[in-house]
């Protein structure tokens, strides 16, 4: 079985959970003898390539005017979408990115044949995101053509790559699987960006199978996008086990540490964490709260923390990279994910892997696969405070959750998820 896979990010250059999931999945697929050709914009050359071949989309020549127009729907207009609609990026980062991109993007290298152009992708979510999505589709078609006979199925992750998947399908005639890691409703609540929604729906409709990362997401796909339930399959994410060199990381403070790790955006429910922290601090003094990450709500949260007068017990680390994430887990006594809407949510699994008991919101896909996690409604600040208090004050409880949680998370293997995905490939390519 050979797969042409379209992604947008891959470790080590990741901004969110999508890259981690792609990595775990491709790793699992490799074990099941599935060969993956992973297409992503702007491969820098140091992606971990032990399990996948990384094709740099920028290196593929796209013939101008050939099939370009054909695969970009005629009625599509290029719009500069609002910054808060851009996944994984805050308005500040977006603005900085926009300025940067004005200097480097849209670079078209001419080489002899004026009809052939080499597209340079920024590889990040940029100002002219829609334009990039469409360009990516043009290159995808060229990739599919050049790789003709080398793949049996096409797999596209999240809406940014759906046009690419559709274009590849049209050129090659191979079946298309689209993978929903998050929908526009998860990212933006009820204020969906219509253009993004349209791309998502077009991708799902064109697909032979739709993979949702949770039943929660599957429900959204069928009810909000009107996709035929018979072609939507849930495959829960899993967790990658690497060498955990930070297990013995020495913590500096004696206080209990409660950690939130993720983008500080509306979707992740940072506000509820702050309110719960203030409630806990009224009862127990020897606890510290850490918010690790960055995002468009960060300044708002910092102000709220100051206003509540708990800034000496509530700390911000900014965006954590590499080892610091593991260090953070190693230091934590409780991990919390109070997401308002979370299609899956892989980070609690990472925490459990590090022996940390977790509290997750009932509005997360990961809640479907975990028994040994405290589950609360994201808005129920009292229940959240209660759970934090219990896990830090009654060590027996925290230990039980940590021990059972580790067992539980160990059983969530990408191997199993990949096996299901392989079955899906087989069912469509017959």
């Amino acid at each position, binding site marked *: 079985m050979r797969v042409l896979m379209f992604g947008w990010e891959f470790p080590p250059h990741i901004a969110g959970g999508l890259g981690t999931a792609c990595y775990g999945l491709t790793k699992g697929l490799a074990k099941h003898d599935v060969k993956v050709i992973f297409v992503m914009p702007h491969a820098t050359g140091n992606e971990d390539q032990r399990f996948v071949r990384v094709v740099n989309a920028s290196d593929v020549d796209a013939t101008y005017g050939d099939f370009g127009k054909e695969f970009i729907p005629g009625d599509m207009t290029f719009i500069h979408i609002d910054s808060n609609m851009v996944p994984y990026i805050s308005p500040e980062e977006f603005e900085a990115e926009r300025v940067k991109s004005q200097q480097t993007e849209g670079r078209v290298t001419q080489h002899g044949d004026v009809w052939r152009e080499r597209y340079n992708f920024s590889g990040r979510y940029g100002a002219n995101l829609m334009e990039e999505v469409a360009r990516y589709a043009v290159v995808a078609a060229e990739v599919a053509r050049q790789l003709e006979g080398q793949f049996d199925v096409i797999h596209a992750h999240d809406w940014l790559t759906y046009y690419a998947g559709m274009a590849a399908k049209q050129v090659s005639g191979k079946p298309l699987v689209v993978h929903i890691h998050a929908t526009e409703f998860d990212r933006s609540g009820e204020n969906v960006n219509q253009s993004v929604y349209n791309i998502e729906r077009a991708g799902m409709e064109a697909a032979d199978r739709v993979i949702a990362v949770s039943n929660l997401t599957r429900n959204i796909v069928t009810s909000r996008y009107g996709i035929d339930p018979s072609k939507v399959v849930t495959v829960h994410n899993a967790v990658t086990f690497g060498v955990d060199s930070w297990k013995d990381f*020495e*913590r*500096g*403070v*004696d206080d209990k540490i409660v950690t939130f790790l993720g983008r500080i955006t509306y979707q992740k429910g940072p506000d509820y964490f702050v309110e719960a922290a203030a409630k806990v601090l009224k009862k127990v003094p020897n606890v*510290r709260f*850490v918010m690790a990450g960055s995002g468009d709500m*960060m*300044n708002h949260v*910092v*102000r709220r*923390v*100051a*206003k509540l*007068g708990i*800034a*000496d*017990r509530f*700390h*911000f*680390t*900014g965006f954590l990279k590499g080892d*610091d994430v593991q*260090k953070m887990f190693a*230091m934590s006594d409780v991990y919390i994910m109070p997401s308002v809407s979370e299609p899956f949510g892989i980070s609690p699994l990472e925490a459990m892997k590090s022996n940390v008991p977790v509290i997750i919101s009932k509005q997360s896909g990961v809640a479907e696969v975990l028994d040994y996690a405290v589950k609360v409604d994201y808005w129920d600040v009292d229940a959240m405070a209660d759970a934090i208090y219990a896990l830090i004050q009654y060590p027996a409880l925290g230990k039980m959750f940590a021990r059972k949680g580790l067992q539980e998370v160990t059983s969530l293997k990408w191997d199993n998820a990949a096996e299901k995905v392989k079955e899906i490939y087989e069912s469509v390519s017959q």
Partner: protein
Amino acid sequence: MKTICFYFQIHQPLRLKTYRFFNMGKDHYYLDDVANSTIMRKVANRCYLPMNSLLLKLIKQHKGAFRISFSMSGLAVEQFREYAPEVLDSFRELAATGCVEFLGETYAHSLASLIDNDEFVDQIKKHSAMIKKEFGMKPTTFRNTELIYSDTIGETVASLGFKAMLAEGAKHILGWKSPNFVYANAIDQKLRLLLRNYKLSDDIAFRFSDRGWNEWPLTVDKFISWITPEDVPGEIVNLFMDYETFGEHQDASTGIFDFMAYLPKAALATKKIKFATCSETAAAHQPVAVLSSPHPMSWADEERDVTAWLGNELQNEAFNKLYSLRPSVKAIGSKDFDYVWNFMQSSDHFYYMATKWLSDGDVHKYFNPYESSYESFINYMNVLSDFAIELDKKKEELGKSARKSKSVSHA
């Protein structure tokens, strides 16, 4: 005859290094030594050394007729000792001329006067002792951090034996009155007040090199012509500014040194102007009225209030959390902890957390090493949290050894 009273402020904060949550409990060194030494060396070479040598020359040249005042924070002196001892030597040389006065202030360039009177008094005493040790004189005129002044702050200062205090010639306090007279504190009228003539002070400190200013270029003769005429009311002109104006805020290429080099000679030649130190100026003139300032005012920003340091929830939180540690610091009474306690108090940290970026944003940004007020707040709180943990540990340790020695004596 009019008296020009020059006072120059010298202060350098001890800047904090990037201190992350991961450092807490492990790393108790909070300072950015590289930034602190680099900035000190740079300012020493561009401002302190050349300006000190110019002033020394002028004082000698005019044989006692040119007189000036300095106020120098304890944190600046600490950094002179560490990174630029020759600057301290040159200040001592100036002190030895007898034409230079050193004012009293808070050791840490702190905002203690706004929250904790005991700490405020401690800071003043510590500073006066330092000045006595370094320059051999006891300060008798006081200037509070950023010229922060209120009736009650003045009362405290008077109770410590100071004869005069500096304040901003703020319009909302003076109304129709002129800053060019000596005034008295509203509660203790023995305390005389010298008010900054902000127009003439800022002509030198801020506008000197501003080519968009309709009076540019500012020549000495023009400047003097704004002071000498009979119809300009007042007996004194208080020119209060940062010492870093010379060579740092105003680059040497603007001609700021030449301006100062020529000013004393030209002013004295008019026979209508003399120079005096702050204490001399205050003593030589009777207060013309009592000045009431029930709320704290300062020399900063358009509002001349204290909102540059305590104007948003970040600043208030950091400020309150800092001063809640005072009982522990005092109970421990250790040099190491006092050292941190001092540099954490400097007003600069709170200034970096300001979010009022409109018309005064330029000045704020100039002094701010952080990208955002939030960033500076987070960094400050991380350091403060670690300091608090260390204080608790030390207290516990002391408690234990006290109990132990007690039980030993019982045995």
